[in-house]
């Protein structure tokens, strides 16, 4: 790996001062928190920065704050393990806790951070292979499109067909989470859903609107009283793997027999960004029964355009929605 300078700011302003303003040079300076994704990128020479800006000495970013209304404000340096085990997350934002728990290995959860997880780069094996100069790396072709695309997108693909690898993102989007992006000129807040971009809509080499001189400092998860949620992730290998597909579902259900008043449904592992499926969520509203679950499944994949080797993701998503709803009905 190429040698780099390590900056260790102790305030956010110092950190921001270290960052590149120029988009074209953005990879010369990289933010460094848990390092779980960054290290793999450095080792494969996918990025060769001159400088890493270590955020870990900046105080206050490693806390989960519970606001008066029950909303969570999660600092970007909170580890995945902390998030997974936090009683508020577990009690009121189950999907988020379950998503955090589903990530990697215990070691990765102890080291990896919320900010890092939301900003991690794709796992597509063409992107990760230095020999394949793909679109994501500034090349001219998405090799997955006509290649070995078992792990690639069935929704929202083109011209790149990566899937966004974050497990936290679908769960947080299901809770209408909002992110704070801090730049030299101040901060902006936007919904996590709008934070992510599709390759056809924005810079194909990026997955979000984060500017090179910005830092994602906090994630706010608004309280949703009366809602229950779950995150069901399907891994090819249970012990340690990224999602082939995943489903985050949050519902507000009342009465007996149970009726769903409102719902959110977000898919992971199937699109270049966390894939909100509002029409599928709508199908869940009403009697909480397998017929509606199946209808939601059908709607969730209605626009799917599978590639040569990933058509299985269509039945898989439907199956995961059934499993998620079945789990929620038992809570």
């Amino acid at each position: 790996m190429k040698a780099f300078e390590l900056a260790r700011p102790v305030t956010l302003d110092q950190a921001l001062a270290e960052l590149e303003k120029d988009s074209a040079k953005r990879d010369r300076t990289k933010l460094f928190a848990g390092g779980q994704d960054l290290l793999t990128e450095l080792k494969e020479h996918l990025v060769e920065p001159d400088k890493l800006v270590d955020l870990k000495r900046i105080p206050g970013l490693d806390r989960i704050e519970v606001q008066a209304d029950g909303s969570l404000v999660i600092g970007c340096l909170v580890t995945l393990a902390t998030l997974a085990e936090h009683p508020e997350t577990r009690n009121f934002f189950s999907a988020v806790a379950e998503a955090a728990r589903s990530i990697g290995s215990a070691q990765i959860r102890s080291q990896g951070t919320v900010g890092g997880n939301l900003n991690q780069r794709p796992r597509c094996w063409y992107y990760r292979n230095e020999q394949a100069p793909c679109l994501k790396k500034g090349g001219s072709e998405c090799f997955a499109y006509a290649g070995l695309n078992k792990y690639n997108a069935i929704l929202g693909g083109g011209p790149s067909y990566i899937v966004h690898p974050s497990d936290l993102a679908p769960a947080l989007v299901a809770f209408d989470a909002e992110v704070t992006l801090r730049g030299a000129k101040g901060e902006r807040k936007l919904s996590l859903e709008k934070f992510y971009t599709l390759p056809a809509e924005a810079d194909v080499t990026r997955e979000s609107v984060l500017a090179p001189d910005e830092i994602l400092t906090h994630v706010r998860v608004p309280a949703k009283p009366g809602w229950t949620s779950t995150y069901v992730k399907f891994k090819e290998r249970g012990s340690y793997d990224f999602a082939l597909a995943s489903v985050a579902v949050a519902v507000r259900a009342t009465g007996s027999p149970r009726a769903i008043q409102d719902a959110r449904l977000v898919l992971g592992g199937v699109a270049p960004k966390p894939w909100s499926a509002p029409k599928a969520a709508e199908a869940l509203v009403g009697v909480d029964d397998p017929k509606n679950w199946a209808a939601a499944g059908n709607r969730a994949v209605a626009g799917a355009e599978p590639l040569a080797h990933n058509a299985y993701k269509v039945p898989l998503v439907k199956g995961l929605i059934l499993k998620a709803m079945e789990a929620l009905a038992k809570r």
Partner: protein
Amino acid sequence: MSALDPRAQDGAKPGKKKILVPKVENGHETMVEIEVDDVEGPQWGPRDSMRLVNHELVRVDAVDKVTGRARYTHDVRLPGMLYAKFLGCPIAHAEVTVDLGAAKKVPGVVEARVVREGEVKFVGQPVAVVAAKTREAVEDGLRAIVLGVKPLPFAVTREQSLAANAPEVNRRGNASKPNEDGDPEAVAKAFEGCAAVIEATYEMPTQHHACLETHGAVVDVPTNDAATVYHSTQATYASANEFKGPLKVKEVEVVNEHMGGGFGSKFEAGVEGRVASELARDLKAPIHLMLSRRDEFLCAGNRSGCVQSVKLGGDAQGKLVAMQSSIDRLGGLGGGSHAGLPYIYEVATSARTMRSVYTHLDANRAMRAPGHPQASFGMESAVDELAYALGVDLVEIRKRNVGDVHRRQLDRVAREIGWNEHPHKTKPDLSDATTKVGIGFGLSVWGGGGHPECRVTVEISPDGGVRASVGSQDLGTGVRTYVTAIVAEELGLPMSGVTARIGRTSYGPANASGGSTTSASLAPAVKHAAFNARKAFAEALAKTLKSDASEIVFDVQGVYDARSKRRLAWKDACATLGPAGISAIGEWQANLASNGIHGVQAAKVRVDTRTGELKVLKMVCMQDCGLVLNRTGARSQIFGGMVQALSYALFEQRVVDPDLGIAMNANFEDYKLAASLEIPEMVAILDDEDTRGVIGIAEATVVPGHSAIANAVHNACGVRLRSLPLTSDKLLLGLAGLKKG
């Protein structure tokens, strides 16, 4: 029947006796006569009188291993040592030029060399090497090498290799001339009388050894015509010769105290051993050249894949009547490996053709039961398909076509896995349930016999210390532990009373660990050495005590002279020895080993029909292996084989992009191995009805697990997956296919 018939046979030469020992070929056992020395040599003796051997022994090096004290080749650090690594060709087939100019200027880099220029025939083939003072400088040096890569047309898949306009992979053709066996016309005729005939094609991908310790050596600077080489090898004794040439020395001491796996891929010094030697010789500095994980995947061998087309017919009772098969072995630039069909099962009339199809990929190497897991997958799948077609119980069809030992083991394993209570014995579960449980079976065979190759020394010193020295390496099976146990047992000592030294050329000739022959080759020689040491000690003591050697008894309380009724503590007895102590040599004893083993495995799985999730719930293995040296160790080996096959079933396959010719999964993230959560409940039953001498167990245990799992998947849900791995994408599409009918 007992392995050793005590009655000597007539017609033996003087000093020899003839004994009957069982021999197993293709799962069928016959008794054969062999000649052994007719002397009062060592015997294993009755098992119920054993104190250490055949008991549950903790590995004597367990603490060293888990604390990191055990020194592997990777761990060796010598003064002034340089690190070296290869740069591999990035694509499958190319004309390569290497420019080392910039690499040589990288700070810390001491040397950069071309390993290969011109035509390079597989992705990952080493083309250059860099040696430097630090590992970081090696990496920087490798990055600074400028390769000129002119791509050449390549074939990395069977289809590409066999295509009409395929590039030439092998000068003699991309497919070898088929090897033919049996009379196809007789088989065609035999099919006519069958109650059912099935026809299918079964495929296995290329899999990797995935040794935790990559290949390589640390080569010390040669001095005075001799050199020491630390080598991660399955052939410690033999590999010394391979280093003599490149080091230009007469004597090489290979050291291999601990090794992190080999599985058949580490018999040779390889390009890494040769280049490390040349660098050490030329630079006059010790060289540490261990392959990177990527190199390990790309240039250190693999288990060949295969495509096998099978037609199998049986009678109404499930007797196998006719089989026609054609097999393509896929070993990259190598010939590939396949044990042939029919495999284990007796088929009345059969014929097959088999050939190698070559591709621009690293050649296959031996791997734990080479060719057998492939043959098992073809045969067990076909037998299963035929059983369903005939409506015959899956255990019954197997019992009808194998020998006694397998039949007995099938009954035991069926009971353990829950077959008797299982509701789906002749039809898969085709109900609407969303989670379904299925059971499958598979059989194994292996030779595992020994050879007269090892020479073992047992020394007793006047201070009471006992040392056993053997040149053999521990491929992972616990050699130190059973060497210690055998010697301690013979001398009446506890495990702690004996030190086993292994893994050095100078410890004496020893066989390479291949074909599960280590135990059956080594253990008899150890027993013989310990026996000789005991006898020599008894004779020396008899002189001192004015007794007779036959009156001296060694037991856990020490040494007892029956004539004088005197008892001596072990240390006091040893103190009577002269300064030289006792040194005894042992060699292989045919009567202490045997060969030919059998195993049966079963798997129970759960399939979730909504997601295609496949969970292996339980695996059972029953295995015979003659005298078990260490029951804990033997079961560990069985578990290891089962896990490796489970990993084949669920995940493992080498992936190369067919358009780009680049390796997609030469790392442990994308080349998936089963990990802790995949491991099911596992039961290993040692077949104690087998009373023969020592036989190797390693290879048989990896043969049938994946076949049993694939069969269990079909039993669970009706989807027959004919290509490994059994991933959820295939399962989901299979389930969708069933729904459509």
